């Protein structure tokens, strides 16, 4: 803004402070982002960053970057990461450990499953990087009419309803098998 000239612009922000988390779920983990709204100077270099910490077997719901490439660098622990390209082919399905990185191109869907306290930092090539999740309360499937889902996947209305409404979380969930009932206190939005 006007009150900041380039000389006095802030150039750093600590995103490791738990109190600063943008997304937080007890016993699952937290995610903190920094973008041009957080530090205006990022607008000039068109870059942003996201810090993630997963506990136990937590999972980041499948998603894709809408307007950025992502470089995901592991700072702690280990996770299984799968990446799918525009042809629907699996282009990566590996474990990522401390000190390793993965390139996730724009639009490629990916999922991160922590195997033991996975921590990472992601750099994104857009000052206002946006994601679109494929599961969960704000997902693409949730935004589609049931009629679209039944016709697109040739499934019944009831099945479409399950796909659309079963997952209530937005970003982080616990990777458990199938349809176990979920305790409400785990759903902290």
């Amino acid at each position, binding site marked *: 803004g006007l009150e900041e000239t380039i000389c006095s612009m802030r150039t750093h922000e600590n995103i490791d402070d738990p109190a600063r988390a943008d997304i937080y779920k007890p016993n699952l983990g937290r995610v903190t982002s920094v973008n041009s709204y957080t530090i205006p100077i990022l607008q000039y270099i068109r870059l942003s960053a996201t810090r993630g910490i997963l506990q136990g077997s937590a*999972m980041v*719901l*499948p998603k*894709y*970057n*809408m*307007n*950025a*490439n992502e470089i995901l660098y592991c700072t702690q622990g280990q996770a299984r990461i*799968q990446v*799918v390209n*525009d*042809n*629907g*082919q*699996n*282009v990566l*399905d590996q474990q990522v450990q401390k000190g390793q990185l993965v390139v996730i*191109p*724009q*639009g490629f*869907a990916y*999922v991160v499953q922590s195997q033991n306290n996975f921590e990472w930092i992601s750099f994104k*090539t857009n000052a206002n990087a*946006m*994601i*679109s999740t*494929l*599961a*969960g309360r*704000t997902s*693409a*499937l*949730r*935004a*589609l*009419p*049931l*009629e*679209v*889902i039944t*016709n*697109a*996947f*040739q*499934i019944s209305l009831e*099945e479409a309803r*399950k*796909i659309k*409404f*079963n*997952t*209530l979380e937005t970003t982080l*969930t616990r*990777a458990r*098998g*199938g349809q176990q*009932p979920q305790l*409400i206190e785990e*759903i902290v939005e």
Partner: protein
Amino acid sequence: RQSLGVPPQVKDACNLDNLDVLQPTETIKSEAGRLEYWDHNNPQIRCAGVSIARLVIEQGGFYLPTFFSSPKISYVVQGMGISGRVIPGCAETFMDSQPMQGQQQGHQGQQQGQQGQQGQQGQQGQQGQQQGQQGQQGQQGQQGQQGQQGQQGQQQQGQQGFRDMYQKVEHVRHGDVIANTPGSAHWIYNTGDKPLVIISLLDIANYQNQLDRNPRVFRLAGNNPQGGFGGPQQQQPQQNILNGFDPQVIAQALKIDVRLAQELQNKQDSRGNIVRVKGPFQVVRPPLRQAYESEQWRHPRGPPQSPQDN
């Protein structure tokens, strides 16, 4: 574009000694329509840094949810339909309040139905102040329902009296220009009685496309054995984005069983990217009364019915 520092490979593609009229070079057929595109490696098209395609959706055809890594602008050449798009983080503001089977048909159901209807009508702005107050009610109601949903899970939905809710659905018709941002999935259904023809330009040299200069299409659903849009190198079959995941992971993410997760991958589906909808396409949409009155005015059928129709 050169002054903007166009990447070298595009730069040397600009030998424009003579131009010529271009026809589509490839066609991808689907169950209820086809996709025709011009080869984006053609020097003239490559110099412009774009990729162009024509989408033809037959009557009752449905173009499956798709998104691109580049911005897109389209023009509706012929026909009419409805289109929806996914903008992450936006609320599901369209609510289908048709009563469900087995659902309580009592007063409470009616009241919610009306409230739902009014909510929708509210969006048409027909009821003024009252709408504002009802809109608020609608939102509270919706949140109330969300809250209930969270606590009692899916089996409660039948009693809550709404069938579905989703993001905005719009009417499209010939003459419309449609803009799509990268990463925002959209779908189109032909509601007219003739083919819906849409010509689209994908701006692959736009800075918002962070990938290479090939048009990349991402499908949320469907499977096309004939391959994807984008010239010869895309001839391998194009599957939907869920196809590449381990079904177990999809099942965990969506909290469904693995069999249903496998169905989402459309592995057995060879209908292509434009499928035929069997039976009514029950997606709630606002009425289109004003537009079509003016339409009839422009194309009067038979003698004027009343003096003001002259």
